């Protein structure tokens, strides 16, 4: 029953990767792990010999009925999503892509998630297991290909977002989900504070909302699920013919997907050629501080006039070039937590 899909490039170079890591460790030579090289802007620049992951590709195993797929880290996100789409399934955390070369290993190493994050969960919530190359160049297996597994410490989830500082991700197993039967996105004109109030109210009801964003006076909401519930929710939101709607692949979601936003709202000028938005992740309690959200965002000394924010607390604001989550990043204070420091792979 296990189905092994074959992609154009299906090759296992784990042995060679292990050998490279082993040698680098012996020589104490830092490595820079590179997949599609589309996320280099994220985190601090790394000085080291590249460890090329893009050649380690293909689906190791995929059984749609098990809702589990195991994939080599260098596989492009688009290839993986195509393979899942054939069986009407998806990666529910909607990994953002920063170009066609974006790999699934990079998505997991950076731990970024897409618009479904507040409802379905983050990248780490869908990682079931991983094979990881240790600093000594050994291939270690943590977690597995089953939904529930509490044996030992949860090393595979610890790898998510660790940016390769704890080991090199070789293969990753994910829980996947069926695609929703119906997907429908709506647009409602309202100021930011009203949008925040509305989302807080909607959040307390069991509605089929899977994404929400506010941008330039408009609240976007994506409804997904069964036909009946999506239609009922549309009516509840008061959306009738007069409101323009767009489908699942509506431009709004794909721009949020890649954490990019168009610059045309930036005072009518093109402020930045390749804007990379700030990404703030704020407590949902900001909703109960009605009115504060906009003022916090506008008064922050590092930010220009706010032009966009979203319900999943991703405030997308051109033109800035770094992610705030990295700027405010602090190392863990506890001295003994720095056990990873002696790892050369970075």
């Amino acid at each position, binding site marked *: 029953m296990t189905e092994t899909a074959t992609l154009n490039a299906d090759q296992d170079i784990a042995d060679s990767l292990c050998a490279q890591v082993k040698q680098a460790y012996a020589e104490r030579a830092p490595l820079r792990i590179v997949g599609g090289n589309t996320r280099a802007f994220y985190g601090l620049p790394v000085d080291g010999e590249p460890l090329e992951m893009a050649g380690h590709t293909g689906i190791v195993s995929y059984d749609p009925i098990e809702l589990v797929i195991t994939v080599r880290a260098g596989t492009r996100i688009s290839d993986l999503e195509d393979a899942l789409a054939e069986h*009407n399934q998806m990666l529910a955390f909607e990994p953002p892509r920063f170009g066609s070369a974006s790999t699934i290993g990079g998505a997991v190493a950076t731990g970024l998630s897409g618009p479904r994050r507040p409802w379905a969960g*983050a990248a780490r919530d869908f990682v079931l297991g991983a094979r990881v190359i240790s600093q000594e160049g050994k291939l*270690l297996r943590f977690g597995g290909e089953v939904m529930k597994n509490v044996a*030992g*410490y949860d090393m595979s989830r610890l790898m998510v977002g660790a940016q390769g500082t704890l080991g090199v991700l070789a293969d990753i197993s994910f829980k996947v989900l069926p695609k929703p039967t119906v997907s429908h996105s709506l647009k409602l004109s309202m100021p930011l504070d009203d949008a925040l109030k509305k989302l807080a109210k909607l959040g307390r009801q069991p509605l089929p909302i899977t994404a929400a964003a506010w941008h330039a006076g408009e609240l976007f909401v994506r409804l997904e699920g069964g036909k*009946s*519930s999506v239609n009922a929710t549309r009516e509840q939101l008061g959306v009738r013919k007069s409101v323009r709607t767009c489908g699942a692949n509506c431009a709004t979601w794909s721009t949020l997907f890649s954490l990019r936003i168009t610059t045309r709202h930036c005072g009518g000028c093109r402020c930045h050629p390749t804007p990379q938005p700030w990404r703030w992740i704020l407590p949902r309690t900001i909703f109960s501080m009605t009115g504060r959200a906009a003022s916090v965002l506008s008064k922050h000394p590092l930010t220009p006039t706010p032009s966009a924010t979203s319900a999943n607390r991703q405030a997308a604001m051109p033109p800035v070039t770094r992610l705030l989550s990295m700027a405010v990043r602090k190392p863990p204070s506890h001295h003994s937590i720095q056990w990873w420091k002696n790892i050369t792979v970075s």
Partner: protein
Amino acid sequence: MNILYDEHIDGELQSFEKSDILADLQQSVPSLTLLHREEDLRPFECDGLAAYRVLPMLVALPETLEQVQTLLKRCHALGVPVVTRGAGTGLSGGALPLERGVLLVMSRFKKILSIDPDARLARLQPGVRNLAISEAAAPYGLYYAPDPSSQIACSIGGNVAENAGGVHCLKYGLTVHNVMRVDIITIEGECMTLGSEALDAPGFDLLALMNGSEGMLGVVTEITVKLLPKPETAKVLMASFDDVEKAGRAVGDIIAAGIIPGGLEMMDKLAIQAAEDFVKAGYPVEAEAILLCELDGVEADVDDDCQTVRQVLEKAGATDIKLARDEAERAKFWAGRKNAFPAVGRMSPDYYCMDGTIPRRELPRVLKGIAALSQESGLPVANVFHAGDGNMHPLILFDANREGELALAEEVGGKILELCVAAGGSITGEHGVGREKINQMCSQFQADEISVFHALKAAFDPDRLLNPGKNIPTLARCAEFGAMHVHNNELPHPELPRF
């Protein structure tokens, strides 16, 4: 092999006089309730895995975080091991005391600190009962999703320690998916906050790591959990099958139809009969297997899905399909499943509950293997299965008063777990390793992987004082257990003494 702490293979523990430690702790934390007389210690000698009992040296019952912090600092300075215990309902001996250790009981921390309906968060002390969270959230139309069957008694701190599951994991996840933040105190007495009220935090995901770490890395002092809007409706279908394999295939068919049920449970004949005899749930006693499929969500969708599932079950060869007519009947269907363990307990003086997980497609093969082990040993095995997420709970029936039967039950249990590992699964889905499955860890992990676990433990607790001997076996234990993976015929760590 005996699973009680054995210093020869589990590592040496420091020697000291109980009276010295007691005097020291009484002086350094004067307000702390410390139990030291045998009759006071007796109730704490085991957790939910009652087959194993050890009298702790001392029991500490703190009421303030300052007491916990000072106690930990003092134990750290004295080199005294600390085993943390919540409600004591764990099934893997995770809170099994040490003869030369302090048992730190967190059950007095049972305040719900706040419920924020707009943020959909609850801030809790670790001793809050799992069910109490949902009860407190109910007025806002919210609830806490993970529901281990001990939810009436088990505490949220223990849920975090074991990464507890329940019958709704496929759709709603385990504890790790529903916890936003935990505060811990390390063995050195340092307070740390992992995670936050925001969805993602920069840095290593130590929050994920803390879930399921079995009290080995820190003592959990506060937990913030996600609350979900209560589904508008929930409906349960019960399908009977004349063949376990057909029922197993039906589970795959439901998922292939694009449906993720809120709960999807399977029981075999012995479990059905036991449950029916006990709670009169209306189960078909002549069936070889039943499936309980709960669909929850928005009313209109649930009705559509019920139709689809009914068709799928018919096609899969179900001999009978019943939809619970009302809330009362739905509760009755679930009562049979939720009481399956005590029901089986009525059939036999003792039972031993396993917790392996497998890819669902392996179910027929693993069930055959279990049947063979049952026949060979003469011990009946009833099967209860979280079919949706591949988590099996075989219940091995035995009589501890009959010489050698406990040992035989343990042996059969160990072999069942090895079957699960061989099928690509895991030795534990939700109960944890604790002390119970310490030997089977050696079959699931290689020596290099176990060494990484030890390195991680050392980062938080270099002196191995927090819950020593649980969760991760020493390499010496694996060598003795004889299940160590030998790669290329090179014995890992040849420098270790073998017994």
